[in-house]
């Protein structure tokens, strides 16, 4: 670490707040939602109350203990859009985080191995992963999920496979710049095994770029999760998920019912932007 001062802009603060709120909602969202996100109500295609009436409605709910209105309206089957938008945070975040944790662990580990031990086998493996990157990401994800079955686990595994090469490349490049450093020679002279050096000395020092990448790729993964269910190749309804909510609301949109698709759309936009801002912040302040 250098003694360079960390600069925080207004945008960064905005990003931190949204990211924090999103993570909070992913954990505690189910205790906040007024309606069961998968249970239909009797009110169908009802618009949200006008924003000017929100203060008095909030007063009614929290002080007068009246039943909660449909803050974001209801969709064409009577599901509460607000509850679903909040509940979907968990779906999208669990998928995005799991996929990134798996691909980052795998990618970093393989990156260290393929960068530190260089022979025909590791070189061939590297080329194999390169090839994986020339596949069209979205279409490949669709193929993997649709053919393997539209379950959470399959979506996570498909994304892990697609994102591993990103982390692998980043880590390997870093490893290559480390192998000839003095402390590696020192460790070798002191009689440590090659595998010990790779894991104990190379690995921790090669983590940096992947940590920067992590926040950026979380955003990609949320977009991919939403995109997959938008085309009907993601999590199955009625699981609350932003992409499938946007898709099912799109039909009503041309009739003027904007709320079923616009609210989850805004939620997606804000979330991925917040993660991009965080990624940008880490990138700016990461000292290599």
């Amino acid at each position, binding site marked *: 670490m250098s003694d360079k001062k960390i600069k925080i802009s207004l*945008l960064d603060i905005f990003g931190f707040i949204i990211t924090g709120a999103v993570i909070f909602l992913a954990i505690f969202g189910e205790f906040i939602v007024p309606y069961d996100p998968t249970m239909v109500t009797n009110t169908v295609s009802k618009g949200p109350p006008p924003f000017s009436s929100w203060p008095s409605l909030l007063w009614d709910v929290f002080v007068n203990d009246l039943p909660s209105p449909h803050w974001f309206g209801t969709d064409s089957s009577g599901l509460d859009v607000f509850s679903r938008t909040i509940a979907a945070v968990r779906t999208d975040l669990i998928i995005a985080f799991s996929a990134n944790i798996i691909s980052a662990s795998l990618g970093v580990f393989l990156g260290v191995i393929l960068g530190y031990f260089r022979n025909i086998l590791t070189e061939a493996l590297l080329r194999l992963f390169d*090839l*994986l990157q*020339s*596949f*069209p*990401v*979205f*279409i*490949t994800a*669709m*193929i*993997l999920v*649709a*053919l*393997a*079955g539209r379950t959470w686990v399959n979506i996570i595994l498909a994304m892990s496979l697609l994102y591993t090469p990103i982390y692998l490349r980043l880590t390997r490049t870093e490893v290559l710049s480390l192998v000839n450093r003095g402390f590696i020679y020192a460790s070798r002279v002191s009689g440590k095994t090659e595998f010990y050096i790779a894991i104990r000395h190379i690995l921790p020092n090669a983590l940096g770029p992947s940590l920067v990448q992590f926040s950026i790729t979380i*955003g990609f993964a949320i*977009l991919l999760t*939403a*995109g997959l269910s*938008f*085309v*009907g*190749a993601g999590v199955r309804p009625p699981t609350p998920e932003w*992409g499938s909510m*946007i898709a099912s*609301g*799109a039909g009503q*949109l*041309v009739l*003027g019912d*904007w709320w079923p*698709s*616009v609210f*989850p*759309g*805004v939620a*997606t*936009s804000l979330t*991925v*932007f917040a*993660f*991009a*801002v965080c990624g*940008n912040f880490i990138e700016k302040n990461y000292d290599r």
Partner: protein
Amino acid sequence: MWKFLIKRLLLALFQITFLVIAVFFLIRLLPADPVSRFVGMNASKEAYLQAEMSLGLDRSIGKQFQGFLLGDKNSLGLISGDLGKSWVSGEEVTQEIKKFLPVTLELITLAFIFAAGISIPVGLWGAANPGGIADKGTMVYSLFAGSQPEFSWGILFIFIFFVYFGIAPGPLGRLSPLTEAPIVITGAITIDAILAGRFDILLEALWYLTLPVLTLAFVLSGPIIKMVRENLIQALQADYILYARASGISSMRVARDALRVSISPTITLIGILFGYMIGGAVLIERIFSISGIGQYSINSILAFDYPAIQGVVLTISSITLLIFLIVDILHALVDPRIKL
């Protein structure tokens, strides 16, 4: 130059060979049962076996691959440029791709022209005064645009411009359903309209393409602006620019040189994004009912149409590899520091 070209072409050929193998086996390794998809869940054993045989899935996977490469009763084989027949429509996959690919290429080419036309000046504007208001504004914009879900913006644009203001056409495809499309020559409707001499159709096609192009250009402008800005700032601080300035070369000339150097990584980025977009325009095609390669791939994948899936992935990946090759060549032409 020629040595470089041949080396690159050989590499691309090698990559495509592996791609063919990877795609073929990847699809078949996944636990999907296309046969029961076609005959239905409650089909009799005989019907199932018959369907399995007509799809050629009763053979061993090795025999299937041999048939795919060298030809069998359904196709001439990939060696002769035949990707087989679609299991759903019964049409030649190559014919269907020929029909759908130009539609997507037209859409994204227009989007890239639009995006680059906006992004390069904006990036330059930001870089002209690093740290200024314009620079900060463009930075926030590029971060925002570059992270956005294009499908939700597409829908928002439809709501604002079509439903609310009624100034844009509805998401009904490439032309109004009442207009007769021009004779298909290239498959790209704007070019076909020009070839047919129908400028009214050209205008209408452009009109229908406005919102999808705008949406894609918005998302694409993010990374392009960022790239132009960063590279130009870097180039302007380089020693050779300092030297050029010190030698008394006019500032216009210096700016032109810096721009030329900074444009070459931007070409690389645009190339990579273009390759990505051929498969990535899926969602926009879906929203605006544009029947391009993306829609075709969604339909094939959801229908477990293996020959079509193979065809789509191979086509898109090959184009991507070809673009990388072109980018490498362009790179060398623009940047005087690179020798082929």
